[in-house]
């Protein structure tokens, strides 16, 4: 980098016209493609194409919002969708930019590795003819002989870990020294580490998997595909790669702030599980907290969410108890206003119920019922009961969290507090709200690339530090016997990059040589 006057630069020549022969043209194209200017443009392009994914909702993180967005914008929505704007970081045009950047990077860095390897084994270049023209330059006379001066200069420089070259007798009497080779090493390590990070990310994507599961207090989970609510794996991972562990959620504790300023902010999440690392292994107690996952056979179990599972007892028209269970309700806001669905296909007639669970109930003319605090201080449930064909026998997969009310008949609406019973109209049965338990949701993830990604990142930082803070510089000492028999000494230095400490180093070297008289 040509920061200060008189330094060498690493500038490339400005682009020349392409040669006409086809191999020459191809080589010219490649040189353009691996030039700094291309790297610069591709870097900007990369920054630019990253932006839409931060503005538009993304399928990977927020699929529901994406569907809403598309529904709200009937012309633009589907168009943006086909162009991949709702999955930007997996879109072909995004991949094209970073792949081009990395091909350019490889084309640029790999040849430099070879060049640098050779430079490191080469002696420093000989002294320029006119040392006096260099920016750092001193001249003085010494009583010592030429060879004594050169010898002290060599000792001085070698002890400070300069690479030293002494002139052959026919080249004149000088020594040349160079230092700071690690700058280029650092730069190459940094760029190669970037490639390493990309590979590690790719390995994680191809061989890794992750899934989400909701577990009620007192219930268990065993690590098989069917137990997950959602699961996704890379191209080279499958259900057979799941380590066979199992756990029971014994207790889940939450605490919320009750001070006015931060009312309802979560303060504590703790899940106690009883874990069996593999079939036949002993049961052990573990605690999972936010920021403190539990590792099992390379996979990690993270606590990512929680909610309420109120208890419902449902009887049908014949008085049979057709359901008596804790039903998972999904939180919709920070105060855990939660929605859930109860489907009772065994009831006669079939009954489906949509519910709104409010841990601390409030009613508002505009908003309707909602919760004002996430703790179950004053719980209630608002129910809407339907009867008709639940469609559970049709064989089509159904979400347990939504009720398809098309073709069903609404029986009525009702609010319940714990202990209350709703007698459904037409003698269709009864619904009783009981107590509640909590559930916790876990993300279970396996990413075989993450250690490599971390190692490459650390290398990248180290390389970067070398590349930015080490300075490549050269010094020369030339001696020459004057007519009066004294020795004329010239000391000079040149910074390949920023001058930095070089003036001090040249001055110190000169002072040392003067002092040796």
């Amino acid at each position: 980098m040509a920061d200060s006057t008189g330094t060498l630069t690493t500038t490339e020549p400005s682009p020349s016209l392409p040669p006409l022969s086809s191999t020459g043209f191809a080589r010219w194209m490649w040189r353009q493609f691996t030039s700094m200017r291309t790297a610069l443009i591709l870097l900007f392009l990369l920054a630019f194409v990253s932006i839409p994914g931060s503005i538009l909702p993304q399928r990977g993180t927020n699929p529901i919002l994406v569907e809403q967005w598309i529904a709200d914008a009937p012309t633009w929505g589907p168009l943006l969708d086909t162009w991949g704007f709702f999955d930007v970081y997996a879109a072909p045009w995004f991949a094209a930019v970073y792949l081009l950047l990395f091909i350019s990077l490889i084309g640029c860095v790999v040849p430099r590795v070879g060049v640098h390897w050779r430079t490191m084994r080469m002696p420093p270049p000989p002294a320029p003819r006119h040392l006096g023209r260099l920016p750092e330059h001193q001249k003085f006379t010494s009583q010592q002989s030429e060879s004594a001066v050169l010898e002290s200069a060599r000792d001085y420089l070698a002890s400070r870990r300069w690479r030293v070259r002494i002139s052959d007798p026919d080249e004149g009497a000088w020594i040349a020294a160079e230092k700071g080779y690690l700058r280029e090493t650092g730069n190459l390590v940094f760029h190669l580490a970037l490639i390493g990070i990309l590979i590690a990310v790719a390995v994680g994507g191809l061989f890794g998997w992750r899934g989400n599961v909701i577990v009620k207090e007192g219930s268990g989970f065993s690590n098989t595909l069917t137990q997950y609510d959602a699961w996704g794996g890379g191209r080279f991972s499958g259900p057979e790669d799941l380590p066979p562990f199992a756990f029971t959620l014994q207790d889940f504790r939450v605490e919320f702030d009750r001070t006015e300023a931060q009312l309802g902010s979560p303060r504590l999440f703790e899940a106690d599980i009883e874990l069996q690392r593999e079939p036949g292994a002993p049961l052990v107690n573990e605690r999972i907290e936010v920021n403190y996952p539990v590792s099992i056979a390379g996979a990690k179990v993270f606590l990512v969410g929680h909610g309420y599972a109120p208890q419902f007892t449902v009887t049908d028209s014949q008085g049979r108890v057709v359901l008596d269970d804790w039903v998972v309700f999904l939180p919709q806001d920070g105060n855990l206003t939660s929605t859930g669905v109860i489907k009772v296909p065994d009831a006669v007639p079939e009954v489906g119920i949509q519910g709104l669970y409010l841990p601390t109930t409030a009613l508002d003319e505009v908003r309707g019922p909602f919760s004002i605090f996430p703790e179950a201080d004053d719980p209630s449930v608002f129910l809407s009961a339907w009867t008709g064909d639940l469609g559970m026998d049709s064989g089509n997969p159904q979400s347990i969290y939504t009720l398809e009310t098309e073709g069903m008949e609404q029986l009525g609406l009702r609010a319940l507090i714990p202990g209350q019973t709703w007698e459904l109209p037409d003698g269709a049965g009864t619904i009783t709200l009981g107590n509640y338990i909590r559930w916790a949701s876990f993300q279970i993830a396996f990413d075989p690339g993450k250690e490599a990604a971390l190692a490459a990142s650390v290398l990248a930082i180290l390389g970067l530090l070398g590349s930015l803070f080490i300075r490549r510089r050269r010094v020369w000492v030339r001696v020459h016997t004057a007519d009066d028999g004294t020795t004329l000494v010239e000391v000079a230095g040149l910074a390949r990059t920023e001058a930095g400490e070089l003036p001090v180093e040249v001055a110190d070297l000169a002072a040392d040589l003067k002092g040796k008289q």
Partner: protein
Amino acid sequence: MTSIGLAEASNFAVYATMVTLTFAMIAFAMSFSATRVAAPEGLPVAVPVGVPVGVPVGVGATESLPERGAVGLAPGLRAANIGMALTWLSFVLLLIGVTFRGLWAGRVPWGNMYEFSISSALGILGVFLIWSLTRDLRWLGLFVVIPTLLTLGLAVTVLYTEAAQLVPALKSYWLIIHVSAAIICAGAFTVAGATAGLSIARSRAEIKGTAETGWTKNLPDAERLRILTYRIIAFSFPLWTFAVIAGAIWAENAWGRYWGWDPKETWAFITWVVYAGYLHARSTAGWRGDRASWIAILGLVAFLINYFGVNIFVNSLHSYSGV
């Protein structure tokens, strides 16, 4: 001290900082507009200041706005020195404000946007003042104090929140590492944005021939300003890289993935890429001058979008802003 006492002391210190900084701004502005007296023939145009006598200095250490001759900038210089002293005082006051805030909350003072903002203001002043120990930066004071005041003003008016405990996702020592690095970067990027902007202004004046008469007359020349910009970014880019990696480690611990293209992560990445572009531009023919300076400003813009835009407007996993 009681908890209420700590809270009041913290707020009081922050307001006091704004007062002293306002005076610092006035002092710097007066110094900045002081007439420049042309250096007498034979004297070097710029004299190294702030470098111990006897230490040989390279091009690196010469600055503008030094003592010129006997009288020279004397009135302006006195004002600049007062500005520096007031800036130090502001730094100490703000340090007290931030520390008391942390003591009051019983945790690191980085739990919401108000706290991030006063800490970032501290970061800006800290980077500037520590840097000013190695060279004369009095000409830069005005352009550092203004963004600091803006940050503090925004903090006490729009972003103010009562202290609260951290939500569980923020309870991690990676938070301390990640955020402290980010706060230093906030300071460094802001200072670099100031020097980059000044280098563009100065370079325009140099081209128009008004460098010695226009408002940029008291600035170092454009090339010098570019070098200073490069130095700060060379310092902060590795630190930002580190901050992003620490954030990724924290995300891996909290959410089970180290990178998820959450808006906050995306803008951290964009900021990083833009500054990488800046460093490349500095070694690309034709890009080294004002274009590189513009990229440095663009980097700051990306950083600010991440800081204000994403915290306030975008629904992100990182929305702990408390506003």
